[in-house]
């Protein structure tokens, strides 16, 4: 069962990922991203991260990708990107080397260390029908004890996001003419 889930989800993830990097049209790429995100969410569930799976779907698939699409539409940059040519010579082989290299090295490390990772503990509370918020509770305990400081710091991050939009979107004097044109 678990294998089946894993394989299906992995397939979603990878297909989506490949879609992101190969679809000419940015809208299609964004939609492929959604596929990946859903796959990830499934895998979250498989790892007892029910709350995160939900957040993944809501925040990522829901909010972030929508934001992407919104920007694409807003700017009208949805014309297809011509991926058949590569202006930078050697860029693609280089990318391939890097991609395979990075993944390969990490996989090699994981394989080398997998014996210690075989054990799958039971310390994570999964959301069960009996205790639907067990996972949430456990997570929140972690967030509000060990990571309370980190949690506070995220507030600054969001503040920056706010300021950022202000800075980036504020019209500047002298820019009207140029932009309205």
């Amino acid at each position: 069962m678990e294998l089946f889930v894993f394989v299906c989800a992995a397939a979603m993830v990878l297909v989506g990922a490949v879609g992101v990097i190969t679809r000419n049209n940015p809208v299609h790429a964004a939609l492929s991203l959604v596929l990946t995100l859903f796959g990830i969410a499934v895998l979250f569930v498989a790892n007892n991260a029910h709350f995160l799976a939900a957040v993944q779907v809501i925040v990522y698939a829901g909010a972030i990708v929508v934001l992407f699409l919104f920007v694409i539409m807003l700017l009208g940059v949805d014309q297809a990107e011509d991926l058949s040519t590569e202006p930078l010579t050697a860029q693609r082989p280089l990318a391939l080397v890097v991609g395979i290299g990075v993944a390969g090295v990490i996989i090699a490390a994981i394989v080398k260390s997998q014996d210690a990772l075989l054990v799958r503990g039971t310390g994570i509370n999964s959301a069960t029908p009996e205790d639907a918020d067990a996972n949430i509770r456990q997570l929140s305990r972690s967030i509000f004890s060990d990571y309370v400081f980190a949690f506070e710091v995220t507030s600054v991050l969001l503040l920056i996001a706010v300021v950022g939009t202000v800075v980036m979107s504020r019209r500047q004097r002298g820019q009207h003419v140029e932009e309205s044109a």
Partner: protein
Amino acid sequence: MNALFAENLVGPSISWMGISPLLVLLGGVCVLLLLGSIAPRWPKGSYCLFTVVVSLATAMAAMLQWHDVTKNGPKMLIADAVALDHFALLATIAIAISIALVSLITDDYLRREDYDGPEVYALYLTAAIGGVVMASSNDLIVLFLGLETLSLSLYLLAASHRKRAESQEAGLKYFVLGGFSSAFFLYGIALTYGSTGSTNLSKIASALSGDSPFSQIDAMLLVGIGLMLVGLAFKVSAVPFHVWTPDVYEGAPSPVTAFMASAGKIASFAALLRVLVVAFPTRIDDWRPAIWVLAVLTLLAGSILAVVQTNVKRMLAFSSISHAGFLLVGVEAAGHVGDKDALAAVLTYLLLYAVLVIGSFAVVTVVAGKGDSHTTLDDFRGLGKRRPAMALALTVFLLAQAGMPATSGFIAKFGVIKAAAEVQSYSIAIIAMLAAVIAAFLYLRIMVSVWLADSTDDTKLAVPTGAGIAITLAAVFTIVVGVYPGWLLDATRMVSNLATIAVQAVDPATQTPAG
């Protein structure tokens, strides 16, 4: 942790005093933004003044903590997530000084470029928060958040000059590459977490020491360390992760470049030291060679690449890379357990370099003129005639960066070289000094333009008050520290060994109750 049914969650005690510098900064941001939006037009220069006050208050708060730490010893705050020690406080003070000086430059710049407003200052302050968090974090997640706080602010700052295409390009480049490297960093955290069971630096250290089961998982841990190193090396612009630096430094608004090169560097190096020294003292033999190579590459590439540049901002960018190499020499020396001198040396270097680089960019800002675009060597021709005092100050900064004695740059370099020599890393020390010779060529080139070349136009440059104050302060500081550095060194010497504190922190017997 396993108290499954402990419904009443007991949060960790929070030492408000301990994080008072952060609170001051955060308060400053809020006030700036709130009042800025309520009263849209502040009197001329008051954003700047306010930011300076906030940063000074931050520094004051840090000073107060400094005495406390001196008296009571370092401690861990808020569930061991934040370290309150001299190292963090010194970085905080350095960052605060950077903001104060950078704000002074920014004031006139914003008005000149016609986008005055509280946002840029607010971003300075949020970046500072990120930096302070990075420098004092004792947890990889906290560190990551601090890093992102800093980075996001910097991306925005880099792109903030919206009339200049270069600024926008710089912002985008920085953002894409920054996100890219953050992903690596984060992956490193994940793998480290997987191999040690914790994201807390102290706990990682104790998990890796002794015969805990985690000491088995070496490959994954090491790759994790490597990935984190990538992220931090990107931030400190170590070669070959420096590629963004010249473009971003050149494209970003000049005061922002100064900020990136000062506060950004301080935070990044502090974080690098924290991670390596606190968490992985047991893996020194693995990461030291990597740092060694990075340091050498950074030193050489930074110096050599600068040689043929013609844009002063870009030159200074490469010079900052070269300086990063110097700092890496100090990091390499810090690899030796128990050598706190290296930590002190790196921090001192950071502080002194921050002032120097701000001073240099302050001059660049003034020379660049409206549009922030006159930054080639030719634009500096005859500065010695047009503005002798400012040219002299620039000369002082450049000479200091070249490591001339009787300037703070020498003290900085000397400390690092001394740290390296004390752990007998002679080869890297010599390479560093030779790189400094190559780098000196670039400073000489600027000085040639400033003093020895004939001026193309003789119009007197107007030096705005803020920039003038910043330049003067920086120059005086440079000379004073160069001639009489005792007080500063005595202070930085208080920085104790991070690794020891970390071990103390997780050992309940020696842990001082927080708050």
